């Protein structure tokens, strides 16, 4: 009976009893959720455009952040390092398309998935041989990002300025991407490819160009994620673990849905923090590692295609 109270009643009393703390927990979850959303967004973009389940998204985040910080450490000023990093991400997108994807057209999904794991290993090795394996500090000040914190309710609710900036930047980049996808010629071509490869080919859309563009956009998203996450913790290869945290987000939102990635990211981010804070201590803590997966797994029983995914229609 005691344990049932602790599981089903006590946490809710805690929430109501200290609403400001509850708000703080939700805010922390929200900020993490935004970063999950960004990673999931990169996944979805590539999955829709090329059917590739891009495992390398996580390492792209690390690689982009490492390049930026590594360049700065070697004396390149931040405003030069940023464009160079963007160019490096373009070169990466170009080489992935040229050397990997182009040779693997028409292979089964699992082969493409394995290829992206191969890319992941390659990028880990490359990043470590160029920039070394030790954790680095993100150049927050040089990028003109705010730091410090704002407090409300007599210092009870603390919001980090970098988190607020992250949310705003994430929102702005999503809006820009939305406009890009909706209004520009290449954006429309991108949506056409996502809809139907063959139909897009038949009206003269070049698949190869689109793939480069898609990987490049994912690379830029990875850079944004890398800067934001790097500002919260160190820049190191341990960051790539967050890519694995983005997978349940994908399940929840559906592999093919961009709104799904965003909503799913926020649900997982907030749900995970609340679960950890109010229930985690009952089973020994650190349940963040798998809670998201369990949420997603239970969810899948009811909607196998995710929250916003396209209904899977099978034909014999």
């Amino acid at each position: 009976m005691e344990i049932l109270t602790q599981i089903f009643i006590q946490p809710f009393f805690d929430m109501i009893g200290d609403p400001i703390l509850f708000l703080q927990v939700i805010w922390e979850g929200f900020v993490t959720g935004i970063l999950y959303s960004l990673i999931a967004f990169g996944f979805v973009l590539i999955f829709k455009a090329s059917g590739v389940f891009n495992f390398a998204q996580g390492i792209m985040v690390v690689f982009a952040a490492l390049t930026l910080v590594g360049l700065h450490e070697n004396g390149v000023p931040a405003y030069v390092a940023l464009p160079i990093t963007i160019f490096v991400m373009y070169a990466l997108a170009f080489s992935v398309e040229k050397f990997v994807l182009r040779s693997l057209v028409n292979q089964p999904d699992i082969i493409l998935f394995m290829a992206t794991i191969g890319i992941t290993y390659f990028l880990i090795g490359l990043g470590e041989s160029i920039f070394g394996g030790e954790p680095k500090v993100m150049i927050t000040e040089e990028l003109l990002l705010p730091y410090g914190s704002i407090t409300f309710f007599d210092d009870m609710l603390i919001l980090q300025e970098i988190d607020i900036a992250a949310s705003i930047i994430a929102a702005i980049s999503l809006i820009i991407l939305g406009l890009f996808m909706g209004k520009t010629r290449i954006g429309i071509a991108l949506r056409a490819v996502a809809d139907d490869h063959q139909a897009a080919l038949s009206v003269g859309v070049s698949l190869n160009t689109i793939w480069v563009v898609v990987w490049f956009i994912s690379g830029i998203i990875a850079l944004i994620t890398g800067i934001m996450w790097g500002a919260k913790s160190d820049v190191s290869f341990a960051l790539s673990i967050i890519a694995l945290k983005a997978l349940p987000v994908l399940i929840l939102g559906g592999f093919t849905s961009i709104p799904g990635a965003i909503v799913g990211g926020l649900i997982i981010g907030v749900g995970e923090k609340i679960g950890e804070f109010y229930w985690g201590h009952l089973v020994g803590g650190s349940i963040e590692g798998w809670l998201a997966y369990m949420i997603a797994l239970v969810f899948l029983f009811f909607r196998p295609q995710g929250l916003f995914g396209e209904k899977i229609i099978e034909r014999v």
Partner: protein
Amino acid sequence: MFYREAGQFKTTYIADQELFPVKQDRWGLLIIIGFSFVVIPVVANDYWLQAILIPFLIFSLAALGLNLLTGYAGQLSLGTGGFMAVGAYSCYKLITIFPNTNVIVLILLSGFVAAGFGLIFGIPSLRIKGFYLAVATLAAQFFFEWLFARVGWFYNYNDSGAIEVPVRKVFDIAVTGPIATTEARYIVVLSIVTTLALIATNIVRGRIGRAWMAIRDMDIAAELIGIRPLYTKLIAFGISSYYAGVAGALYVFTYLGAAEVEVFDINISFEILFMVIIGGLGSISGAFFGSAFIVLIPILITNLPLILGIPINAATVEHFNFMIVGALIVLFLIFEPHGLAKIWSIMREKLRVWPFPY
């Protein structure tokens, strides 16, 4: 010419249903098994056995298990490491509870615990497919990692949080623990792997294996011809997890000697998936080829500069190791997506008609 099966007539049904119908296969396999049992323990030194052969065999077993699930039944799984951990930890608990039982029996029994959990985590496969399922199996991976790190009962509440293998004897020869010789451990691993591999070969050619392949190729069509997806998929998860569990138990008990749950992290799941893909999906021998490849490549990369006399520091080698393995995987997928097993079957075709072109 070397591989011609012409003239090998089967006169009885029993002969027709042999495990290896081609005489060359049969004899080749017998020679390989005999060689590994008799010659290798005598000839090979400790380094070879400990650094190459034992991990090769253990990973082959795990890859074999995953190959049954992914290659034959078509269910992609990323939770192999988790099930290996279940095998290892349940073997550890079993040995604590039944200290006097034969350790080999316990290793084989611990596979059943893993199989049980495999069944539980296989249930979602009825509703979800493909990458959704792969992500769902990651739940198993992370859950078990957390469970074995957090719940003290699994490692007998010792301070280090690691499980340490006690000394156990079979026929008065120590096979586990610090005093066991490398040869003894090698023989134990080899016997278990050989037996389980032969059983796997038998499973996949029988009713269960055919049902798996039908489900893999198109599950709706398989259902229409009377194969029950529920049982078939769950059996695949169960048997695959059994193999993974035994491999995990062997990994700790005969190879590492002591382990924390970190040795069964997500990377080992990926490594085993690599072995399956590089070896060849849907092939028993592929598991062995793939395992040999993944085990040998890092050793080669580490030792090659030493052999060639190029001075290079260990950290650089480590980084290059990642790069080269990554690049090799991509290259492999580009040039031979069907894996090493396919290369072997092409060679076999060539040998069959050699010296003629066809």
